[in-house]
């Protein structure tokens, strides 16, 4: 494994998947994994299989929905879409994330100055 790829922070995969679906519209699992890797400019490493565990969790929360469709290569694939509840959750989570990362950033900065 490349040393410049960091593992995904616990709990952040949910947020990434939700944001991806909100930004890109309905997508299948491969597309989601691909998109996250692209945006992360290959800096974060996604264990592609684990995307599906995350999708199950989100489905059970009712934040996304799923239905079978046909992929661009004419294969049967499951397409996931963000739901209204998921959008609400995304707003809340985003705010939360911004706040925490701000706090952490300030904290780290301060430490560096000393």
């Amino acid at each position, binding site marked *: 494994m490349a040393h410049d790829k960091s593992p995904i922070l616990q709990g952040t995969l949910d947020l990434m998947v939700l944001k991806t679906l909100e930004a890109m519209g309905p997508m299948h*699992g491969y597309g989601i994994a691909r998109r996250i890797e692209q945006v992360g400019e290959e800096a974060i490493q996604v*264990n*592609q*299989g684990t995307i599906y565990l995350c999708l199950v969790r989100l489905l059970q929360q009712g934040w996304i929905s799923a239905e079978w469709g046909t*992929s661009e290569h004419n294969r049967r*694939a499951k397409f996931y879409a963000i739901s209204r509840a998921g959008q609400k959750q995304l707003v809340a989570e985003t705010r939360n994330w911004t706040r925490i990362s701000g706090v952490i950033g300030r904290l780290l900065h301060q430490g560096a100055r000393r």
Partner: protein
Amino acid sequence: MRRLARLRRLSARIRAWFRQTALDREFAEELDTHVDMLARENQRRGMTPEAARRDAKIRVGALPSLAEQHRAARGLPQIDTLVHDLRDACRGLRRRLGFTVVAVATIGLGIGTTTTLFSVTYGLLLRPLPFRDQAQLVRLSETREGGKTAGRPFVSRETFRAWREASATLDGLAGWNVEAATVEAGHRAPERVRIVNAKATLFDVLDVQPIRGALFRTDDESNGGRPVVLLSYAEWQRAFDGRDDAIGQHIRIDGQPFRVVGVLGERFRFPDAQAALWRPMDRTIVSFDAIGRLTPGASMLQAAEEGTARSRSAPDLGRQGTALFGSNGPGRIAVEPLRGDSAAAARPVVLLVLAAGALLVLVATSNVASLQLTRTVARRRELAIRSAIGAGPGRIARQILIEHGVIGALAGTAGLILAVWLHRLLPVLVPPSIVSLDNVTLDGPVVMFTITLTMVVSLASGVLPLLTAKRVRLVDVLLEDGQAPIGGGGRTQASRVLWALMAGQVAMAAALLAGTSLITRSFVAVLGADRGYAPSDLLTARLPLPAPEFSRARRVAVLDEVLARLRATPGVTHAAATDIFPLIDLEFPRAFDLPPARQGDLPTPVRAMARTVSTDYFTTLGMRLLRGRDFMASDTIDGAPVVVVNQTFARRLLDGRDPLGVVLPLGWSSGRRDWQIVGVVDDVRQRHASDPPQPEIFACYCQIREGLLAEEPVIAVRTVGAPESYTDVLRQTVRDVAPSASLDSVMTMSDRLRASAAGWQLFTTLLGTFALLATGLVAVGLFGVLSYTLARRSRELSLRCALGAQSTDILGIVVRQILPMAAIGTSVGLGVALLVARTLRSWLFGVEAIDPVTLAIVPVAVAVVVGAAVVGPAVRALRTDPVAALLGR
């Protein structure tokens, strides 16, 4: 909101769990597509098709592991593990079928018997009666200072009347007594049933309403009262098919017409399930059973105080008081919770038997625990390896508990089936005459008990193995030569626990055996005791001759004729009749003034059991005439009135006076108060062999001017062998003499004796069965444990053989391992049993609590059982081929 979300997640998980296969397939397809797309992308970037596909598979992950995680994330992983463990446990149990069968059978046996015992206990002692606010219902009983303690609780009419008015502690008082009567009702043939003479207030106190018609009123109790009757639900169904027009119809009770005014509900059983009719109690009845309902807030103690005060303010009973209570001293009222009488009588027996049942369950549990323990020790390697490859201690504990849960569930089911079967057998085992089983059913509370017991037992038998399992240290176990450890004594924790378990089992079995021995010896003594008469070759029957069809004079005529014909029958040596007969009747004593020995002294008030008999009574029963003479043909109605007394009368009441010639002022026959004692007979035990004899007076009814008072005399016939074969002759004779009369309760005296000892018999059977089962279980357990430990030591034993040990040496090793355990177990068990027996001495008859026979028998029995269990494994140990064992084959 949050809870709602959690609920939704749970429901999604449950739905997903049920669609397991479909979802697995979908996920596999989804992943497949994913790999496909990734491979395509790789290829586009210039990889060869094979490399592209390989890389895609690696980056996605292995399907089985992913599928597992996916399943856990979407479904119910706890249940999946549980199912997995269950399947594992079942597989393991099936592999060790012998152990499983023994464990299930052992625990099932214990649970089945204990469930049955519990249902009996619960039904008799604990189940609430079906009356409103049952806790307020109390049973009243009256005694007098200096009198006897009440056998059956009752109160006198005077006390009842004095208390009835304006009681501060009772909301109501009611009384009743029970009798048997011939009843003709509806389309049913005449039959003798139990009828209850009740105060009208009985139904108020119990707070019951009739389901048809009305109750009777207090003024029905007077002489001018209406002859009315209430039917039990069962009687209503039987005689009138449950028709509404039963109300207003007449039924005959001993020939007298009574009008049906009401029917009581199906669940109304008072005082017991045999009660078929209730009619107003005649006001002339002087004593009866009584209950009351406490006013809210009043205690039983307060009620007893009030009752005692009221009883002392009641009119003096005089001689009647002496007759009823044995003394006419100041009264005392006792107040107890209302319970069935049979329940009160059965309480100590039931509790003792329940204790025996508990011992059996304990034996069964420790048995399975010790078997499991040996298994767990054997499985130490397996468990060690399991924990080596990552099973946490929790997981291993859970696995063992689940195994025991499965055994417990199987055993519980087996136990319930056994209990259902035993319930069908109960009426055979427990004669209804001793204990009424109306309330004994297998229902909610009983099944709850079974389930709890099953859980406790399976947990208990699982905990010991668990404690040793937790101690498993991987390296030790793997380094240890699992095949053949050297030495087997009490070295390890597990073997010490095992030793204690086995000793405990032996102790419990020994205790049960000792109890059985004591009770069996008592039972034999009861049956064989000298009761003052010869029960063999004696046929007895009751011959009801109710008024008004049979006048008192007519009864004498019928009896005389029947007896004369019987005496003329070939094979009949003697025949006699009486009003009160041993084992059949309870009798009430008669009080009178005994004339002083010397002129000028005051007469002494005494009481004695008085009964009227026919001639030839003493010879028919085989009673011993000690002094004077029997009744003779010359003792006629015009002759001088004579009586015969028993030895206790002569000893206790006559104070060393010569009984012959003493004149008793008995008011038996009009115009005669000078009955002279002409003979003394030996004492007869009226009911139980252990009853103290009472003073008794016998008169011949041929000398009583009014004829025979008793409506239901008893006929006794002494035959030349096989008394039961004379039943038809007896019936035919009665039919010939009095066609409208019919015999009741025709039985040989030996059968009556056995029936009277049925309680003993039941107790003996139950305890004996438990003792046998427990001993059998101990044998099985010992066999299992020994087989196992000796097999484990086979290499050591072979080594010893190879070094020159003889068979006797090997046997010595086995015996040394067993003997101390068996000896200590037996001593402890015997000690406990004898301690219990000492406190329950009153239950023994003709045998001391410290009984030498029991002390000798029990160790021998234990030795035999232990020996039997040891023989197999020991022989196998001796037969082991030393070379093969040493080579590890």
